[in-house]
């Protein structure tokens, strides 16, 4: 069963007089548990696609079904609820809140979702142990290495046990070795059944995914799962 189903997606930006077709006529389905890399040059629309998948942006036309539910027509608050429970984000620049400790950063999505403090503490402790961050629980982001920061960010993205994990250039700010560790961590999570979608322009990382979507000028140029689209 497909966890994500996009049909006829259009996204148009108006910049002054000119209109930019960031996404045109996009039809993609992604099954639960898949490991997908979205690749393509700058401006090809891959970030716009990721924002749409993360419900941070709305398409001008077309429909988006997440786990069988049409999420394009939801109100902003309903979309926020979907983001809270079903979608996890990992960013290139980590996006940790600088004044909060690692533990507090990991607990942030649960706090926003209104989960009681006792349950939060228990789940945060579990996550800190799972991600090997227990000794760093009380450190602030500026006291952590890049790899540790991204591990905190991934722990935060998965603490609500989302259906889909969206990673935007997750290794872009890391050196090669640390980047590999982060990719291994994401792949481990994917191995446990979490749908993983990585946006990258690093060929090496992209090729590790079981499925590659190649974007160009807002359209899907090739899909390794459906070679027929390639032409």
């Amino acid at each position, binding site marked *: 069963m497909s966890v994500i189903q996009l049909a006829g997606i259009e996204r148009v930006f108006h910049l002054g007089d000119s209109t930019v077709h960031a996404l045109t006529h996009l039809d993609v389905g992604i099954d639960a548990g898949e490991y997908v890399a979205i690749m393509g040059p700058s401006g090809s629309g891959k970030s716009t696609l990721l924002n749409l998948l993360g419900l941070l942006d709305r398409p001008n036309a077309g429909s988006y079904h997440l786990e069988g539910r049409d999420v394009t027509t939801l109100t902003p608050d309903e979309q926020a609820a979907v983001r809270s429970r079903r979608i996890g*984000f990992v960013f290139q620049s980590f*996006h940790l809140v600088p*004044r909060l400790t690692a533990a507090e950063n990991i607990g942030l999505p649960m706090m*926003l979702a209104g989960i009681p403090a006792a349950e939060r503490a228990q789940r945060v402790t579990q996550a800190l142990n799972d991600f090997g961050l227990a000794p760093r629980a009380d450190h602030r982001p500026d006291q952590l290495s890049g790899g540790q920061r991204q591990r905190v960010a991934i722990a935060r993205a998965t603490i609500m046990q989302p259906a889909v994990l969206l990673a935007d250039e997750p290794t872009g700010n890391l050196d090669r070795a640390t980047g590999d560790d982060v990719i291994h961590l994401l792949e481990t999570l994917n191995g446990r059944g979490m749908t993983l979608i990585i946006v990258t322009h690093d060929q090496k990382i992209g090729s590790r995914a079981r499925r590659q979507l190649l974007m160009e000028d807002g359209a899907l140029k090739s899909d390794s799962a459906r070679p027929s689209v390639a032409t």
Partner: protein
Amino acid sequence: MRNADVLRFARDAAAGYPLRTSLSVLAMAIGVAAVVVLTALGDGARRYVVNQFSSLGSNLVIVLPGRSATGGFSPANALTTTPRDLTVDDAFALTRLPSVRRVAPLTAGNSEINANGRLREVVVAGTSSTYIDIRSFKMAAGRFLPAADWNRGAPVAVIGSKIQEEIFGGRSAVGELIRLGDRRLRIVGVLKSVGQGLGMNTDEVVFVPVGVAQSLFNTNTLFRVLIEARSRDELEAVKREVMAALKARHGGEEDITVITQDAVLATFDRLLRALTAAVAGIAAISLAVAGILVMNVMLVAVTQRTAEIGLLKALGARAATIRDAFLAEAAMLSLVGALTGYGLGLFGAFVLRQIYPVFPAYPPDWAVVAALGTALGTGLLFGIMPARRAARLDPVQALMKH
């Protein structure tokens, strides 16, 4: 998001930028402290005046020469009326009125006292034996002026405590001879210290029989006539009777003014309350300024934390949650500022009371409530705009700022 979490989040956010937070707290604190101290000053002045009038003695009616319209002095009055003087006989006539218990004439002037080899300028008050009871003074030594014919008067004097101290030092003054102007008088008593009252410091006054004072100053007029009514309810009756009696004695002309302590007191009370309110209003401007500062600080916070707001939205925060978090932060800045300012203000009032012990500088309750309310109100009001701006941020745009 739970309310406790919203508050904790807002607190941590404010604590994360200590300089900015402390500056806006300080601005709010100064505003509230200004209101508290200035109203304490204004209300202190009011209480001081009220206390002074109360110390004049109760049931007091004061007669002064000259017709005063309610508006006070006007040039037209000065030109067209020549008020008849108030005389000792006028005052004595009032003692026979039914609602009057006691009457004391009062004439006053400056003279020099010469005794014990020392010379000093003093205020001389000519009055009668009844004066001490009307004003509820106490004697420190000896007795007050003897009861006698108001038009003659024995060559005696009663001095205030400060004069006793300055002329005679620690020595008893009763029985001593003094020279007052060209008169030789014998001191029969010393008043207990009471401080200010009715515009003159009683501790620095020499009291002599009214007849002595009039011949000393070569006059036959009175400065005031003080009347004590039989009871508080009879104040109006006294006023009416005095008016009628003196009108009759002055050939049908209403050329005197009768005031009751109540009326004067009420006027001063109203005046000083208005003054306090005006001062509070001026101080409240600084509260509005502080509110604008809080808004500015919150706008800067929204700009600085744009990426964080984008992140919170990506993590599933609803717009209302973000708005509440920023509003809570603005409210906290205002609340802490207001409470700090309240403490500072109370301390300031305390210092004022230490410096001027006679001055009851306590802020009135309404001013405290208004100051704290305005501080919180402006803080929240000016917090709304930045909070809404934060809530409306587009998450995609916000996340790109880092």
